[in-house]
């Protein structure tokens, strides 16, 4: 018996909502609230309300541990819209009760009026419980499937697939069967049978109060048909495709996993064939053969011995800086070629014209300005073998020229 006022209980729940919510989450997760976890929770919130929790029968003792009393648990599930999915067997339990009650109503249709009324009322209750169970189940399965799809907990794909399969096999497929209009044994079809029977009896039953009960049951069934149809649509349009997508993705993921594991991608598995585009090479495609052939020609060549000439030759080297210095010292020069001849003769009487031309190359240095002599006479330079006839050129330093102008 609860001594306290209902209002006090609700106020207590409102005041300590956060703590109660934590306890609810613990029970959802572990099915029980251990004595230790209750104490930790009370300490965390720094509240000494353990006695009230049992006095208001919010928590009930289970050996040394605790659990939410069923009505409070249902209330929390409802206000948080967080339902634990029922196993099909649990839902089927309502179906069995509906079938049995319906059979009893049909068989005892002419029996005692009071038992018939109570059976109709019981049938209504079972139908309501059944509908709630289906609605809550669809809701929670949809939430779970969406969470699974979004992978908020970042679980590994194998665990994800395991969970998806578990949901499909144990909850979603059986729920689909329960709601399947084409399945003769489905509870949905049983409810249609009840509806047809009730529809007749609400008009033709002799007793008016029974007719009224059938009338109420009929309207309930119409509403239930709409609700279940909606659940069936959610199941067909949302839940099953969602699960189907998880399954399809899982086939791909299994493939990727297999391909990447143990270095399989580098071992036995050949990837898809793709085209090797032919390219225009910037080198001849027989370059290797040609190069090889080129080097091979030297492989068996006879050794060549070079015998150097023992006689020393005095090669003349043109010392440009020395000649340029000399030229600069003698500027301006009226006859450049003659100067070249005399300069080179100072060093070597038997000069060649090659040596001579090297000296004349000073003419092209940037420092000098060159003029053809005004008397337009040619001059001649000769050695033992030949003679060169050249114009007479006057050469000055460039800066002197610019000063003159």
């Amino acid at each position, binding site marked *: 018996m609860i001594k306290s006022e209902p209002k006090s209980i609700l106020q207590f729940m409102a005041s300590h909502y956060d703590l109660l919510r934590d306890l609810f989450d613990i029970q959802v997760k572990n099915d029980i609230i251990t004595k230790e976890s209750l104490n930790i929770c009370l300490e965390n919130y720094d509240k000494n309300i353990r006695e009230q929790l049992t006095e208001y029968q919010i928590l009930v003792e289970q050996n040394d541990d605790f659990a939410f009393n069923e009505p409070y648990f249902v209330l929390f599930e409802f206000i948080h819209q967080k339902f634990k999915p029922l196993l099909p067997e649990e839902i089927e339990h309502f179906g069995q009760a509906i079938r049995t009650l319906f059979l009893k109503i049909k068989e005892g249709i002419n029996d005692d009026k009071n038992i018939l009324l109570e059976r109709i009322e019981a049938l209504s209750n079972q139908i309501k419980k059944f509908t709630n169970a289906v609605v809550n189940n669809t809701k929670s399965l949809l939430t779970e499937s969406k969470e699974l799809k979004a*992978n908020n907990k970042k679980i590994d794909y194998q665990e994800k697939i395991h969970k998806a399969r578990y949901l499909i096999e144990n909850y979603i497929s059986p729920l689909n069967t329960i709601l399947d209009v084409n399945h003769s044994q489905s509870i949905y079809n049983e409810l249609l049978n009840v509806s047809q029977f009730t529809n007749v009896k609400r008009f033709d039953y002799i007793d008016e109060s029974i007719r009224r009960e059938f009338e109420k049951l009929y309207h309930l069934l119409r509403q239930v048909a709409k609700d279940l149809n909606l659940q069936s649509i959610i199941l067909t349009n949302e839940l099953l495709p969602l699960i189907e997508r998880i399954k399809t993705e899982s086939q791909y993921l299994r493939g*990727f996993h297999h391909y*990447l594991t143990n*270095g399989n*991608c580098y071992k036995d598995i050949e990837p898809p064939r*793709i*085209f090797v585009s032919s390219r225009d090479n910037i080198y001849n495609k027989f370059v290797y053969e040609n190069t090889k052939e080129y080097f091979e020609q030297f492989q068996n060549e006879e050794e060549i011995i070079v015998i150097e000439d023992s006689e020393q030759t005095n090669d003349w080297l043109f010392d440009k800086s020395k000649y340029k210095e000399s030229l600069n010292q003698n500027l301006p020069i009226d006859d450049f070629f003659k100067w070249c001849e005399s300069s080179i003769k100072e060093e070597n009487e038997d000069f060649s014209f090659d040596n001579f031309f090297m000296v004349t190359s000073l003419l092209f240095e940037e420092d000098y300005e060159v003029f053809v002599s005004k008397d337009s006479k040619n001059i001649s330079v000769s050695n033992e073998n030949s003679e060169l006839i050249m114009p007479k050129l006057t050469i000055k330093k460039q800066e002197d020229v610019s000063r003159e102008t």
Partner: protein
Amino acid sequence: MYPEKHKEIVTYLMEGKFITIEDLSFETIKKNEDFYITFFEKSFGFELIENQDFYYLVSNETNENTSRDICIFFSILCYELDKEGKNFLEELNYSEFHIDEIIEYFKHSSWSDVIKATNQLRNDESLKRHIGTMVKRNIAVKQSNDRYSFTKAHKLFIDFAKDLIDKKG
């Protein structure tokens, strides 16, 4: 007479590119499929592979390394997208990815051993080059601001992985 865009089609395919349903020339090949199958076979000895979403050429020679790199790339990318709770099939079909986003997925992937063993994926620069290779083959398309999308040709490489399981049984 040769079909319209004939030169473009031949050049494109001979460069190792995929022609996908998103390309204008796809319809031309589709209409002249028999012609092109024979054309490539008789002219070059190449096989034109047709698929409902793309066409591509194969020859006796195959670029196994590139193909393997692409398969590994998609396997890891899909795996990471799934871990983020994304529908990777839809993402590959309809989304654009910033290059940095792709790099991040590979940096934080649990398949680091495979990534390290794959030259084309092992660092930011090689990953960028690899995506460049996919762009050249019309498997990826470069959009503006360093963003990339994938053409339908990506299906060849992900369906390949899925089929491994079917073969395995």
